[in-house]
């Protein structure tokens, strides 16, 4: 018990901050704590959570993935194009997911086997994928008319639980389980802690490092197909704002960009925090120009709480 408490200190601090925020919001705005708004928050945060979980793995190894935002955009365009060309929704989804696997694979290859810096590699794939997102449809955005496709996001594999919630929860729990309880998960941390020591220990450094980039790309693509399914629309700029948000989510959730630390719960809570603030400023009706300042200051307070809780132990 104490152990859970101490090893999830940051996560608990962020969770407390989120709850406090929501309660404050509930006092200020009548409808904030309704089921409807909470499920809106869940829906709004789902793609970011999924993307952040992928980025988390890369960050734990000491890397970074800037390409996720444009993988998100490109995946949407590819999926939309496939659907509009008459492929069925399963095949189209698979094609979309392939985008993430391919770009993640390129990232992983260049970082792992060529030895280029992750920042540079993923900046390059970011630019290339963003550019391809326009090229594939010559800049046109795509409406998705297949009503069944909506089920990917909003259907219910388990009665009463919309799929996007199910996917998020399962992904976060599985990732957290892998990171904590599966040997390969521990290796992810080991590589971020000391690549050289990890290699000498016999840990398959190359394989793991390559894999985290592939998983990160796949998560970004998965986030995208869910999002496309939800809004029935694919747009070349859809993921633009998400890259920085995903990295921010991971870091707010306690991961260090130097590698070796971080948790899937943290990534989830970081992403949720960002969405909750966004929802809050909109509900309160804060002037758009002020939203950046308010968001910034709320995040500052949240990380200060975390900081204070660490200093006091």
């Amino acid at each position, binding site marked *: 018990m104490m152990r859970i408490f101490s090893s999830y200190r940051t996560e608990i601090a962020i969770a407390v901050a989120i709850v406090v925020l929501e309660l404050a919001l509930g006092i200020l705005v009548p409808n904030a704590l309704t089921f409807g708004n909470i499920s809106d928050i869940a829906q709004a945060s789902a793609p970011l959570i999924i993307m952040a979980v992928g980025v988390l793995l890369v960050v734990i190894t000491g890397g970074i993935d800037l390409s996720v935002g444009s993988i998100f955009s490109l995946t949407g365009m590819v999926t939309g194009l496939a659907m509009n060309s008459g492929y069925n929704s399963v095949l189209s989804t698979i094609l979309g997911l392939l985008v993430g696997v391919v770009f993640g694979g390129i990232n992983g290859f260049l970082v792992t086997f060529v030895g280029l810096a992750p920042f540079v590699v993923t900046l390059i794939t970011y630019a290339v994928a963003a550019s391809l997102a326009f090229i594939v449809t010559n800049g046109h955005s795509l409406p998705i008319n297949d009503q069944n496709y909506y089920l990917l996001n909003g259907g219910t594999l388990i009665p009463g639980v919309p799929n996007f919630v199910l996917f998020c929860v399962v992904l976060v729990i599985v990732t957290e389980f892998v990171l904590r309880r599966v040997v390969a998960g521990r290796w992810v941390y080991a590589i971020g802690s*000391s690549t050289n020591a990890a290699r000498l*220990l*016999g840990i398959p450094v190359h394989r793991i490092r390559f894999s985290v980039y592939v998983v990160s790309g796949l998560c970004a693509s998965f986030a995208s197909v869910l999002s496309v399914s939800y809004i029935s629309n694919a747009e070349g700029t859809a993921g633009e704002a998400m890259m920085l948000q995903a990295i921010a989510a991971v870091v707010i959730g306690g991961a260090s960009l130097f590698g070796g630390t971080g948790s899937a719960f943290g990534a989830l809570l970081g992403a949720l925090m960002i969405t909750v603030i966004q929802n809050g400023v909109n509900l309160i009706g804060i002037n758009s120009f002020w939203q950046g300042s308010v968001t910034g200051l709320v995040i500052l307070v949240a990380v200060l709480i975390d900081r204070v809780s660490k200093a006091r132990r």
Partner: protein
Amino acid sequence: MADKGFLLDARGITKSYGPTHVLRGMDFAVAPGEVHAFLGGNGAGKSTLLKIVADVVNRDGGTLNFDGHSVDEPQGAAARARGLAIVHQELAVLPHLTVAENIELPHYHRGLALFDRRAADRTALSALALIDRDFAEHAAHRLVGDLSLHEQQMVEIARALKSGARLLLLDEPTTNLTAGEAQRLFAVLRRLVSETEIGVVFVSHRMREIRQVADVCTIIRDGVAAVHRKPVTELTDADIVELMGQASALTETPVGGELPAAVSAAHVDAPRLKIEGLGFPVEVGGGAILGLAGAPAGPQALIDLLIGAAPLPGVVIRIGDHPQGYRSPREAVRDKVGFVSGDRANRGMLSALPIIDNMLASRRIVERRVLVSGKEAAQARSLLSALSIKASSYWALPSSLSGGTQQKLIIARWLQLQPRMLVLEEPTRGVDIGTKRDIYALIRVMAQAGTTIVWWSTEQTELVELCDTVLGFGPDGRATQLLHGAEITEERLAEATGMAA
């Protein structure tokens, strides 16, 4: 009651880390013109006290005087800032800067001053030349990150020696030096002490060095001074070991020995190890202990070849059914070839991971585990108790352990695993006398069970005591001689490694 004559006078120092009471009223005093040995077991609190003295760690209580003034007053604080230099146990080097900069940069106090490279080169050369002239001559412009641990240690010591400090605190400075380098360091220390009346505090787990260089000693046990400022000549080795609380180290077969029990007696099917291309054939069979002696270059390259970390041009190894050796450390580990390094920071420790992951890392790979099993908690506990490691929890980070204790974690990785071959790279670096004895016993048990042991040590007594065969390397990294059985004496080793004074 501060004695005016003491350079450093610490009284009743207390320090706790959470529930761990490390220092419980420790007294420690150093006079000018003495080499003062500071002794105690792993985790006794030596490094903690030295860090408190050097103002790196805050004390909870007690008084601290430097040169007759309390360090809580401006005068004393200034005197300490000017007059003290410390070599930390875990090296404090700046890997991206050059050797000259590492030595000279701390002596600049004004940020806007120009860094005088030529002067720094000269200082570095003269400081390093005190210990190793060869290294000194070509080292100044190299990046410290590209140096071996030994070379980095010399840089640290050179920095302290050239600081002009009146009190030198050397926390296990010789663990990373070869015997010859250590001898030269001692000569320098003796000269400085007699010529300039500085005080030197020297921490070591090597009894012989203590006898060689120290005048007086203080022994810390249970957070207090078990012996305070006693001339070393008044204590026998047995007294010292007993006072440190490590009486077991005196008996030939360890009595506190839960440790050997950690090695199952099941026979290991060990491969023969053949090494070709060194100029003469080397071949050892299962159960043999092959020692590697000499300056780091040679042994380290051979070790990297043995564990599959890097090829060594011209040298071919044959390990049992692996006629070409191993292509990666992973292949070696999966073939149950173990590796334990004393270079904790770079080659051993996963410092962001808790103790349990560090101890069980090898086992997970050897046993091809997929899941972190529930059994692991029990295994971690048994390893901790076998090595009598006192950790607040196996979920703590290794950085909360003392240096020698961290080393035990790395050794623990290959206990109970019955490796077919075990490659040890200064495995007892920083480990206290009692535990070292236990480890020797353990290695013997493993060898008896059939494991082939390859052991590189710069502590020649270790090699003499343990090895069946020793391969000597010269300072240039070339293999020189192969010694067998009774040929293995300190004299022959000194000759083989080119370290005969």
